[in-house]
Structure formats: C-alpha cells, structure tokens
C-alpha cells in the first residue's frame, strides 16, 4: 500500500536513497516495476553534467514494461551533493555509478544488472561491465580516435576555458550547446571533471583505460548511434571490436529524422525494451 501511495504521489518515481560515494552523497532513483516484475534490474547512466532527467523518460518506459529501474543523479546535479573540486571522471564512474549499480543489486537480490548508458556519462557501462548481464550504449563514445573540429574545439576549450575561466558554469551550455530554455536538470561540473574529459578526448591514460575496459566486455551489447550527433560521432560510438547489435537512428532505419546527441527519441524505447527482454 505504501509503495502504491508513493507511486501515486511521485508519478511512479520512487526515491530510493542517497549513498555516500567518494566524498559525495549520491541520489539513486528507483522506478519500481509496474505490474509483475520481469528480468534483472536495469541501471541507466545519463549524460554528464545533468541529473537523471536525460534518461528519466526511458526509465519510465521500462518501468511500465515491468522492469525495475535505477538511475543516479551525478554528483553536483539533482538531489546529489557536489563532491570536492579535485574529484573528476573516476569519482563519477567508480563512485556514483557503482553506488547506483550496487544499490540495484542489493535491492533486487540479482547477481547482475542490465546497464544502459547515454552519452559521455554512459561510458560508466564500460567500467562496470563485470556486473552487467547486458549493455545498451546510446551515443556513448568507445574511442575518440577521430579528429574533427568539434572535438578539437572541446579539447581546447575544456581545460583552458572551462576550468580556468568559467569554473562551474552550467554543463548544458558548455558541453552540449543546449539552449537555456531546454536546460533541465543541469548541474555543476568540477574543474577536475573538465580536465578528465579533455584528457579522455585527447587519448591520455584515462582514454586507454576506458578503451581497454571496452575491449574486455563479453556481455551482449546493443549500440545505438545518432547520425547527426556532433559530439559523439557514429564512428566514435560504433568503434567496437567485438560482436554487437546496432541501431542507427536514421530515416532509412524507420526513425522520423537523423537524430542528434540528445534527447533519446521515444521511438527507441520499445526497441531497447525488446532487446533487453531477449537478453
């Protein structure tokens, strides 16, 4: 009854808890399964700099299909507290993301979870693949091996401009160019995070660790890519060396348009749900 009341009051979103993770209190949202629960829990990691709003519609769609879904607010966004300025990408992947995964496994008693990642934040799926029964990567970079002007600009802007001059400006403005009126759930980005992302794009040690983690993934993989994504190009997102299923969000694949980085089109939800159900 309490669960039903909570569901009614929160529109189906149940606040689970905040967990201590590497010097921050990380909020993990639980979307309790509607009707009979099916399959292992699903943990969704959204875009960096945002709370879970970039993946909330997908979480709700899976919830309606009987899936138990967990998704964190990255530190400094939503209901999570900011971490120290010195904490960067590793704190997010191995702190916030791991906390969300562990809470999902603990709450459901499952040995593994199905992981979904979106954008740069979605790369957490590669780092936590040892606890995954299946992985869906939506516009998630595998390797930043393709030089292009946008990435060059970001590479230059992130360490020099973002860290030193703009400090903690909204991530939505600087990372994705999202217009102010569309910026929901944007939080703060620490100088350490901007430094780490720049290093990742430049192919530094962190990039090599992430690439090595990708190559070790043995679980079933579904990779989704948007042809007009100017941040994570299809050749960044589809540069996997192991077998995987692919969805390209283009007109010739039946989608309404050539999709961009955000948002995730609703037409994709049933396909992701069906793929997860079959793995």
């Amino acid at each position: 009854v309490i669960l039903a009341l909570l569901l009614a009051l929160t529109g189906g979103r149940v606040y689970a808890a905040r967990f201590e993770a590497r010097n921050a209190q990380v909020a993990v949202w639980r979307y309790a399964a509607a009707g009979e629960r099916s399959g292992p829990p699903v943990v969704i990691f959204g875009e960096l700099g945002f709370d879970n709003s970039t993946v909330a519609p997908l979480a709700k769609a899976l919830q309606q299909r009987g899936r138990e879904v967990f998704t964190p607010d990255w530190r400094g966004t939503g209901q999570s507290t900011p971490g120290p300025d010195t904490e960067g990408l590793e704190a997010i992947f191995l702190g916030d993301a791991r906390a969300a995964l562990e809470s999902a496994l603990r709450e459901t008693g499952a040995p593994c979870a199905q992981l979904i990642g979106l954008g740069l934040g979605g790369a957490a799926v590669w780092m936590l693949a040892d606890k995954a029964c299946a992985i869906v990567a939506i516009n998630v970079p595998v390797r930043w091996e393709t030089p292009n002007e946008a990435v060059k600009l970001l590479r230059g802007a992130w360490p020099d401009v973002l860290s030193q001059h703009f400090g903690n400006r909204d991530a939505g403005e600087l990372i994705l160019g999202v217009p102010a009126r569309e910026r929901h759930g944007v939080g703060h980005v620490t100088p350490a995070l901007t430094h780490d992302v720049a290093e990742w794009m430049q192919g530094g040690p962190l990039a090599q660790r992430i690439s090595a983690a990708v190559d070790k993934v043995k679980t079933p993989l579904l990779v989704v890519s948007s042809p007009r994504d100017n941040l994570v190009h299809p050749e960044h997102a589809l540069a996997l060396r192991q077998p995987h299923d692919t969805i390209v969000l283009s007109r010739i694949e039946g989608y309404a348009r050539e999709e961009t980085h955000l948002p995730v089109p609703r037409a994709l939800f049933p396909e992701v749900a069906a793929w997860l159900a079959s793995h």
Partner: protein
Amino acid sequence: MARLPLAALLLCGCAVLRAPWKPPELPQQAEHLEATTRDGWKISVIHYAGAGRPVLLLHGIVTNERNFDLDEKHSFARWLAAHGRDVYAMSLRGTGESQRPGLTQFDWDFDTYVTQDVPAAVQLVLQRSGAKELDFIGHSLGGMILYAALARGQQGIARAVTIGSPVGFRWGPRFTTWSSAAASTASHLPFISLTAGTLLALPALSWYPTPLALVLYNPQNMDPSVWESFLSVGVDDESPVLAAQAARWMREDRFLSRDGAVDYEQELRFVKTPFLVVAGKVDQLGFPPLVRRGFDALGSSDKTWLLVGEENGASADYGHMDLLLGERAATDVFEPILRWLK
C-alpha cells in the same frame, strides 16, 4: 485491376515528358580515350587536359564517368582541370562508353574491375601523360576498387583518395536486411537493368525526395533537378555476379574477393600509399563508421580522415551523391581534396 495498366501508362508518359530531351554534354575540349583490358574490353577514359601529375577518377556502382562531370556547374573533373590538374575520368566495363566487341555478357565481378579495368586505365594514363605515377580518386565503389587494387599491389599510384567508400557492411538492421535482400534477388537476373528502370521512374524519383533519394543524397545540398539530370545520364546497368558478391559482403560483413581467398580489409595493412579518406556526415551508403573501417585498416603512415559536415566547417552535412554533385561541393569537398593532393 484496370488501374494498374493505366498507372503504368501514365508513368511511362510522365517519364517521356519529364526525361530531358538533350542530356548535358561533355565539354568540347574533353578528349575521349580508350584503354584495352587483357580480356578485350575497351575502357572509356575522358581526358581533361591540364598540367602536373595526372589524376584518375573512378566512379561508384551503377554509374559512369558522368558521376564526375554532370554539367558545367557540377563537375569535379572540370573543376580539377580548371585548377591546373591533368584529369582522366574512367568508366568501368559495362558503363558509360566502355564496350566490348560483340554481345555484352554481364558476367563480371568486383575483382574483374580490380584486376582488369583499373590496371588498363592506369597504364593508359601513365603512357599518355608520360608521368611515372598518378593520383587516384575513387567515389563509393570506385574507392573500394582503389582499396582492393592497392591491396593487390597495383603500382603507379602516388596519392590515393576515397570518397564515401565503405569497407564494412553493417548499417542498421533494417537497411542491411533490405539491401542484402535486394542484392540477392538481383543476383538471379540475367542483368540488372537500371537504365530503363530509372528513366521509367524518373518523375517519382525527381519530383520529391523519395526514401530512395534520401538514401542517396541530402536534399539540403542538391536540387532535385540536378538529381534528375544525373539519373538521366549517370546511371548504368550492372552485373548480377557483382550483386551476388555484394550480397555476401553484407551477409558476412567482410570485404572479400569473389572466391573468398582475399580479405581486402585485412590486406589494407600492407598498403603504404598516402591516403585521404573522405566521409559524408549523413551519408547513408558510405556510413561514416563503415568508411572509417577502411581508414583504420590502412597501413599508411601518411593518412588523413575528413568528415564533411557542419561541425568541421562545411556548409552542411553531406550525403552520398552530394559529395560530388552538391551545390557547394567545390568549397566543402573539392578544395580540401586538392589541398591534400598538393
């Protein structure tokens, strides 16, 4: 049932009415040459006189040399010649003005292009120009042929450029299934008659952006009238044997010779020729990740990747055919290629 013949009649009538009475002509100064292959084909090569190291242009599947020279405003060949290069544009066997004495049998495969047509054209250009080496630019299948020729040890190529040429064959599941089924079906025909079919369907293909047209070009870059003009002169018939080979590529996602003995993607690691690999940001056929596979496989230490899209300074995101025939292709595509060749 009476509607079907009526519709066909209307379609034929529209095709006749809409088909250009006079196709765009080649420039008067263009010289028509012929290269003879070892098996007797006469490969058509159009020469646009210029200076310096010659450039050989090779078109894609089911097209011909008009891919590079549609008319005065849409011509990579004339643009290169106007910028001082000595240009040659070839037509693969069975396309354009290339011909064989006697009845044409559509019995060739991809490897025939690689081992017969390309060596003959390269030899002709080198003999004609007196140069020791040439620059080679291939679009779509032409670029795949260039990869395969170099993988098989083709000599005489100084610098190489591929434009929208995939080396992998996994698009999204729907397009892969559809194109694989189409290639398999076509492989059972005596020959693939696209010339007549294109003319018949010209009104439907050119009056509005049909799904097929959207696969082939980005309408933001190319006027439908240019597309219509290209369809009337730039489309040719194709061999069903090649279709069978392409169907296998898509089934197995491997770039193989017809007998399966050579994996061209694997062999690219031995290619040391300087390379520029060009991809269109929204190219559905030369899908950037699949084009990128060729770039990654190359063993060249001097190789450059160019993704033509807005974020890289181009005026728009480019599709497959507009990389050559787009209204602003000269600025967005030709100039970067010429800069790299220099």
